[in-house]
Structure formats: C-alpha cells, structure tokens
C-alpha cells in the first residue's frame, strides 16, 4: 500500500469505486462541509474537496479534507497549480499528511479569468504533470523538488485528471500515458456525456495497457436543470454535452428527474466498459442527489475494507 487510504484499498482490491465531490463554502463554516460530507459518506468510497474551483475563493481544500476526516470520510485533496508555487504546494502536502489526508489529486486549475478574482496574478510555477512527478518523488525518494531530503514518510495515493473530450483527441491517450509515467495511481475524468467518444478513448487506453497501470474513474455530473446543462455546454471549460441531451432535458416533463435519469443511463453503459474501475460523481451544490444516484445505479452498499 502506498498510502493505505480507503480509496486505494477499494481500487487495489479490484472493486468498482465510487467517489463524489464536495465544494467547500464561500465562508468559514465547518458545518457546511460536515453536512455535505454526512450526505454522501455512506454512498461513496472517498470524497474530493475542490481547490478553489473555477477560480472562485472558497475554504481551502486541506481544511475541508481535515473536516471530512473527522467524520470518518476518506478525503481526496485537490491541488491546482494556479495559485501556489512549488514552495507552498510542498508545504501543503506535508501539512495534509500530518492531518491524515492520503489522497491527492493534481490539477492545472481553471484559469483565474473565469473566477471572482480575474485581476489576480497566476502562478503556474509547475504544471500538473510536474506536480504528479514531484509528489511521487516525495513519496518514493523522500525528496523535495530541490533534491533535499524530506523527513518522515510521505504516504500519498496520487490522482490526476484526464479529459477525453478535449483536443487533439489523438493526444489524449498519450497525455494519460505521460501522467501514468509521472506517477499517477488513479485518474478521475471530466464528465462523460458522450459515451461513444469515451468508449473510443478507453479502447485506446486499454490497447496501450494503461488500464493495468492506473485506475480510471469516469466523471459523471447529474444535471439539475436545462439551464445548468446549457451553462455547462457553453461556459464550463472542457465539458462537452451533445445536443440530444439538451433536447431530452428540454422536452422532459420534469427536467430534474431527467437530469438524474441521464447520468444513470450513462453509468449503466460505463459499467460495461472494459478497463474502467469506477465513477466520480461531481454534483457540486447538489450533493443531496448523490446517495440516490449511487443507489439507483446499483452500487450500494459500498464495500467495507
């Protein structure tokens, strides 16, 4: 075991994992994190806490993860390269481990232009690929980026993202291979709405044998309304929603119910895709729907290891 987290145990034992995402509050209340954590705790194996997603200032991921930890939830700390340089990132990693956080997801980060502080200075000292490599080096070689020695163990289960829907499509598998080579243990993908494209990507992934080297969890986003679907299609970087899904929502009697039925159908198809090891439900702001999605997808009860 690299970190011995619940997520690692589930994935390494070959079981189909379920993770969810909790968005921290735009405020200081730990109760918000606790409530959202309580909502999903029995339905998922681990919970991501986003790092100022869409470049909007929120409670830090490390604090959110520490709060989840007190509930017995296995947290996945997210780190983006947008806001912190290598000094701050490595410091946060050490702090996270001291707080018992074992899963870390490495991301580039949404550009600050999308957020609520568009005039801020971006950092991007290192990129997500280099971050994965740096964490692996901290864990396996006990070395900081500088080469100096880290004191104590650095048990981390390293995560990374992949977006099979971005371009150039042919490079998306090569990029995943790079992340695996850099040291990623698990991958959480961008939301899947175009299952055919996702399937083609997974076929290429398996062809290269990458499914044997890394655990891939497919992203799923329940859709709360037609407006949200249109917003995601038009404004959320990296998300692709086929028109037929928008049409289905528009024509549905109860769009909200359809917005759950669509991801459920997608999950059914995803479960059949060879090489896929789990799903990651990103219902930020709609965490209460997660238990229903997991239950109706036939993924309950979650294994206890």
């Amino acid at each position: 075991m690299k970190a011995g987290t619940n997520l690692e145990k589930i994935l390494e034992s070959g079981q189909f994992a379920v993770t969810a995402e909790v968005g921290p509050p735009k405020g200081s209340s730990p109760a918000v994190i606790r409530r959202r954590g309580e909502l999903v705790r029995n339905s998922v194996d681990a919970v991501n806490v986003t790092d100022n997603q869409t470049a909007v200032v929120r409670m830090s991921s490390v604090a959110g993860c520490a709060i989840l930890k007190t509930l017995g939830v296995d947290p996945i700390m997210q780190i983006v390269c947008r806001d912190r340089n290598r000094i701050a990132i490595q410091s946060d990693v050490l702090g996270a481990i001291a707080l018992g956080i074992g899963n870390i997801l490495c991301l580039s980060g949404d550009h600050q232009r999308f957020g609520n502080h568009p005039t801020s200075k971006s950092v991007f000292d290192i990129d997500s690929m280099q971050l994965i490599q740096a964490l692996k080096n901290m864990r396996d070689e006990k070395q900081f980026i500088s080469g100096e020695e880290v004191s104590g163990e650095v048990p981390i289960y390293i995560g990374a993202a992949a977006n099979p829907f971005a371009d150039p499509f042919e490079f998306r598998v090569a990029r995943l291979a790079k992340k695996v080579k850099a040291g990623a243990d698990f991958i959480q993908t961008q939301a899947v709405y175009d299952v055919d494209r996702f399937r083609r990507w997974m076929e290429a992934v398996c062809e290269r044998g990458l499914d044997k080297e890394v655990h891939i969890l497919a992203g799923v986003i329940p859709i709360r309304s037609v407006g949200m679907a249109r917003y995601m299609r038009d404004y959320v970087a990296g998300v692709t929603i086929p028109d037929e899904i928008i049409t289905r929502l528009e024509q549905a009697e109860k769009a909200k119910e359809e917005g759950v039925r669509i991801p459920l159908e997608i999950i059914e198809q995803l479960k059949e895709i060879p090489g896929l090891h789990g799903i990651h439900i990103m219902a930020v702001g709609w965490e209460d729907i997660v238990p229903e999605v997991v239950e109706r997808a036939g993924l309950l009860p979650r294994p206890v290891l």
Partner: protein
Amino acid sequence: MITITEQKPFEEILQSLEKNTAVYIIGCGTCATMLHTGGKSEVLTMKERLEEAGKKVTGWMVIPTACDQLTKAALVESARTIQEADSILVMACAFGVQTVGFYIEMQVYPALNTLFVGKEEGPGHFIDVCMQCGNCVLASTAGICPLVRCAKSLLNGPCGGSVGGKCEVNPDIPCAWQIIYDRLAAQGRLVELDKIEPIRDWGTSASGGPRWFNVVTSDE
C-alpha cells in the same frame, strides 16, 4: 519586433498630473508612432486635451527613438522649454519613460501602458511570443513558446480546456499546444511529446530578482 503600447485613460493621466500646472509632452517616433499611441498627431491631441483641462503645455517634441541615448541630446536641446514645465508627460513605452527619467531630474509621467514586445503575425496584428525568461524552451516545443502563449504556461500541455484548436480562456486565442502538436506531427516528431518536461529554473526570469547584463568585450 515592436513594443506594444496603448494610451492610458485620460482621467488617469490627469490624476497623475493633479498637482502639476505646466506640462512638457514627449512622443516617440518609433513604436508608439507606428501604433498611433504616441506619434505627432497623438501628441498634438494630448496637448489640446490637457489645455482644455486647464494645464499649460510649455512645449512638445517627438524624439525619433525615445529609448536610445540620443534622447539625452534632445532633452538638452529643448532644455529651456522643458524647464518652464513642472512635469514631463511621456507618450512612449516604459523604456522611453525611463530613459527620459534617467537623463533629467524632473517629474516624469507615463501616458501609455506598455503591454509586450510584439511580433507582427499578420498586417497590424501583433502577438506576444516571448516572456524573456532567460531559459529558452523552444527546442522542445517546435519553436512556439508555451510559457507565454499558453494561458497556464504548461510545459506538458495541452490542458483539458483545449477544444477545436482554441484556448479555454478565450475562443479568439489559438491553443498554443495544438499548434505545437500540429507542427511536431508535421515534422514527424510527435514521439518527443512523450518526454515529461522537467520542472523549470525560473531563477533566470524576473522571478529571480532584478536583472542586468554586462557586455564582455574581447579586450577583457
């Protein structure tokens, strides 16, 4: 190569000159003239607007290249009318403003914002192609700098926001990594992208502190 400038809002210029009553205006005959931000006609328009705003303009000139050493001679030559003013407004890039400030002990204010040193990509269309980081990566990126042309300065791009060859930040901006990918593909060099680009030394960039350079002559 040309230094890209744009005029500051007039209100901001007036704010700078709030405590000053008499202004001498200096334009630049090179980049700022080409960009219509600090050439003769812009200088004359500025003169008019400042006078309308109640400032006295003691004189003006357009220095051929405000950033070079000849600026010193131009300042000496016009010293009398310059000295009648209590401030100098420079309609040149930041190099020009600082050159004027270097040669004359007076209050010097910029009328322009300096954006970047631009390369003309098409007629009248300039792009930022180099951040002058002191540690060139072009060998591995098909001659396209991702540090300045990728919104996230990725060395191992493209990120998940690259769609249809465009950057997620703005659909008018091409994704630098798509360009790099296409060029490497055309040159049969795609395999080079399998290499993970290592973490950079930013110490040679402005992050490493103020920079200077001494020319070493052959006699030394």
